[in-house]
């Protein structure tokens, strides 16, 4: 009887040997980092590192493919570190570093693969080809892997430039755009597997391609990929929490907007036969906005707490803060309408699309057009 009931066992009982191996690798790796570099960290940073162990392990248990990603990124990053051997000059001599896994090479691979994946997903959608869709998915996975390697190695490279220059690569517009691509792609891959639909990849990858375009322009035109030391205001452990949390929000809102586009096209009969049912698109859109809203709330609160420590007040009505509030209010209204009024359909899809413009302005526009305390990463 128990078997037939299909009753989900408690999480811990469902874990396989691989889950435990993964947790052991996470714990081993992070504890090794703590023992080796603990001397350079303050108490808060150590706490963040220790808290990352259960967080990453549980995340891997919850989303199984993350385990493989984590191990692959970790292993290849270690290879890169070994190739460097503490000498930054090896970047241009060692074959692996020069062409594959130095931070800049890996990030360029990520860019190329995301662009290819976009084309492949669209070809798969138009040709109704499962093979092409699967190829697009595989490319996206490899792109995500390369991107994470790029960030990890960049972290290491920054310390090779100078022990006082080194910092986590979430400190300027270039680095957070890479982070945005990665988080958006990973969230999409999660939904793709969860809803067993690969037809939406082309839409989500479009916004990632736009970000890739920005990264390329920013690199080749502005030389923004150069690692710069942190300004005193950013030298805080808060950055490790505030910035990534924000980008879960931004990534989720971007996915929601692109799904909104898919929904609206489908509602007009365009690509309708190729796309998933509108209820499915609508459901993912809601999920994306919900998780985005939750993380954006946390990010804004963390930002306020950091501001209280750095600027002398948890809320200064700085343009970036104010626009974060506007984004928050916007999605709060969206969620109220959807949850309380139970409204569905094109109106909310349009709203999600417009929401992306509001979010984009809060993300980049504020830095471009308005001045304030948040003037890191100006264009």
């Amino acid at each position, binding site marked *: 009887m128990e078997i*037939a*009931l*299909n*009753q989900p066992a408690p999480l811990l009982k469902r874990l396989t040997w691989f889950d435990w191996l993964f947790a052991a690798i996470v714990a081993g790796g992070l504890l090794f980092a703590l023992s080796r570099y603990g001397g350079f960290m303050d108490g808060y940073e150590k706490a963040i590192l220790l808290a990352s162990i259960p967080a990453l392990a549980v995340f891997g248990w919850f989303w199984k493919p993350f385990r493989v990603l984590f191990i692959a990124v970790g292993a290849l990053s270690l290879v890169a570190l070994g190739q460097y051997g503490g000498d*930054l000059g090896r970047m*241009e001599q060692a074959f692996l570093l*020069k*062409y594959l896994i130095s931070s*800049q090479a890996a990030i*360029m691979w990520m860019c190329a693969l995301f662009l290819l994946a976009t084309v492949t997903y669209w070809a798969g959608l138009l040709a109704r080809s499962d093979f092409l869709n699967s190829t697009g998915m595989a490319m996206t996975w490899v792109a995500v892997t390369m991107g994470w390697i790029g960030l990890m190695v*960049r972290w290491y*490279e920054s310390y090779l430039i*100078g022990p*006082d220059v080194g910092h986590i690569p979430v400190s300027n517009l270039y680095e957070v755009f890479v982070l945005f691509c990665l988080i958006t792609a990973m969230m999409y891959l999660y939904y793709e597997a969860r809803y067993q639909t690969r037809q939406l990849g082309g839409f989500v990858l479009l916004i990632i391609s736009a970000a890739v375009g920005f990264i*390329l322009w920013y690199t080749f035109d502005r*030389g923004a*990929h*150069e*690692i*710069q*030391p942190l*300004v*005193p*205001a950013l*030298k805080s452990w*808060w950055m490790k929490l505030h910035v990534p949390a924000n980008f879960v929000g931004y990534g989720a809102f971007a996915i929601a907007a692109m799904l909104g586009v898919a929904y609206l096209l489908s509602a007009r009969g365009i690509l309708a036969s190729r796309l998933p049912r509108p209820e*499915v698109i609508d*459901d993912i859109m*809601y999920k994306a906005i*919900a998780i985005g*809203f*939750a993380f954006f*709330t*946390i990010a804004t*609160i963390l930002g*306020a*707490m950091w501001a*209280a420590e*750095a*600027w*002398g*007040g*948890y809320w200064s*009505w700085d*343009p970036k803060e*104010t626009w974060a*509030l*506007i984004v928050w*209010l*916007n999605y*709060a*209204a969206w969620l*109220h*309408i959807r*949850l*309380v*009024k*139970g409204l569905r359909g094109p109106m909310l899809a349009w709203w999600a699309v417009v929401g992306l413009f509001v979010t984009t302005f809060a993300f980049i526009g504020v830095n471009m057009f*308005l*001045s304030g305390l948040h003037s890191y990463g100006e264009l």
Partner: protein
Amino acid sequence: MKSATPSFGKSLFELLSSMRFAISLLSILAVASIVGTVLKQAEPYNNYIIQFGPYWFQVFEKLGLYDVYHAGWFLLILAFLVASTSVCIWRNAPNFAREMKSFREHVSEQSLAAFKHKHEAVTAYAPEALATRAEAYLAGQGYQVKRVAREEGLLLAAKAGKWNRLGYFLAHAAIVLICIGGLMDGNLVFKAQQMLGMKKIETRDIPQSQVPAISRLSPANPSFRGSVQIPEGSSADVAFLNVADGYLVQDLPFTVALKQFRIEHYSTGQPKSFESDLELFDQSGKKIREATIAVNHPLIHDGIAIYQASFADGGTKLTLRGWNLFSAQAATFDVEGVVHQNTTLSSAAGDYTLEFTDFRPFNIENMGGEIDTPRDAMAVLGGSPVSDNKHLRNVGPSFQYKLRDSRGQAREYSNYMLPMELDGRWYMMSGVRDSPNESFRYLRMPLDASGSIDSFMRLRGVLLNPDLRPEIAARFARQALPENAWNTEIEDKLKFSATQVLALFATGGFQALSGFIEKRVPEEEREKAAETYLRILELSTFEALQIANRSAGLPPPAADDATGWLVRDTLNSLSDLFVYGAPIYLQLMQFDEVKASGLQLTRSPGKNVVYFGSLLLTLGVFFMFYVRERRVWIRIKPGHALLAMSAAKHTLDFDKEFAQHAQALDTLAK
């Protein structure tokens, strides 16, 4: 009849608690917030007058647009948001609490049959036996189950995810709490006092000790956010609060003294840290605390947080050497100055006020230089992330001052202490601008072989001295002409030309020369004439240099490249003097630096309320999104079972779960 026209109170209650009103409020608040991001807030009022003109300035001032987030109408929107949220909680609370507790076991058979999500199964089990199995199943699925006896069998009423409703309470109460916390830290008390005439904003620029009590806030003030600048070795027992077009003085319950302010730099010259060594004294002068603060590391004492906010010069002492630029002499005079103070200079050209505005011990400048682009794989990859900072250089100290003439007109100057290398030659640099939004234009004065500007100054003196012109012209003519042409008419003509060129140049530089050519020479010959004049000028200047060296008791200059450049650079620089706009040049000889640290002092009792609200908000949001509230009923009669399911929010997950329960019931009933 009475119920036909609902009372005003009831209508207001209905309006406040309506979803439409709540969503309108969220949208209005968002739009209103934009205003303050587009229009720079809390600028000096003069900036706004310049930007909008006097009429619109007043309109915008009345609307409170210069401090939107403290404007009455903005606070009113917030107040409505709090009211609406509170009413919403008030209205839903009893209902939700009941819902959380209730199993809804009184549901009627008809309504169960009318459910959209229902499933029927035939069973051979006795009702009690099936109920036990189903109860175990539902409990395993995370449901709380209540068994109720009904005629012909029984009813299982189950619920899961009641925390979803709790999430609603938490999130909405959090909004109210955060707004209350914000109000506690706002300036409502001051605004009330201001309206009652108990407090007044100070707009005069007077020493803080003279600010009257009506513009001072007591140390007991529960909430403030002020700033103060303290020079090294000094202290402060007040902070200044910027309000509208003036300020208030906040008396502190202690005295803050600055022992030292430090800036550390990265090897590239960018600032790495700002730190202040502070000492706190109580009112009797006893030292109560000593600490070092830095950005991101404030000191909290007695509920007041002290932050490192900015830095400035705290009155550096400057020892200067001055030259009178339009005198025929190269003599110097000495000036002593202190940053943020004024000195008067008297000269034949009138009185000037020197207002020293700033001193900078470092200046990291981008000295240009080509960055070679690698042409291999690295170029494709956008290059190395290791930045090439070779072109960044510390060019040493500089100081800034304004030179105000007797009519009150001022220009701003920025002089570097050390010479700078440009195009392979060394110069002293002095920047000038007419207004703060311009960038500096630089006067470059060439250094001589001994590394000083003395040669330049002497040569300048000789060139500006009309008495020496005949001699210069004579020497020039002799040098330029072969011996057989000496004492001829040609020599006289050449002498005349040289005198004329020198005189013209001494009145207005190259500008004067080209003006003369344009006026006197036909267009087709101008280029040639200009070349000739320039040649005469340069050769004459070389002769002037001989005279300058002679009268200074120095050996004659070598006829080499270096001298050639000295001559040309002197002429360029001298020509620029006519647009430099100051009759003097000041060279920094020595300085005794005094730094000042800008501190921000905050007392915000609402902070913990806001943080508590934030915690509730986070919990609430997660409960609302990730705890799904759903209910299951199973009505069991002999041989028959009916499963019905409902949820507050209908999602795809709900459909999936219903299908699972339906299948489970079939299995259980079998």
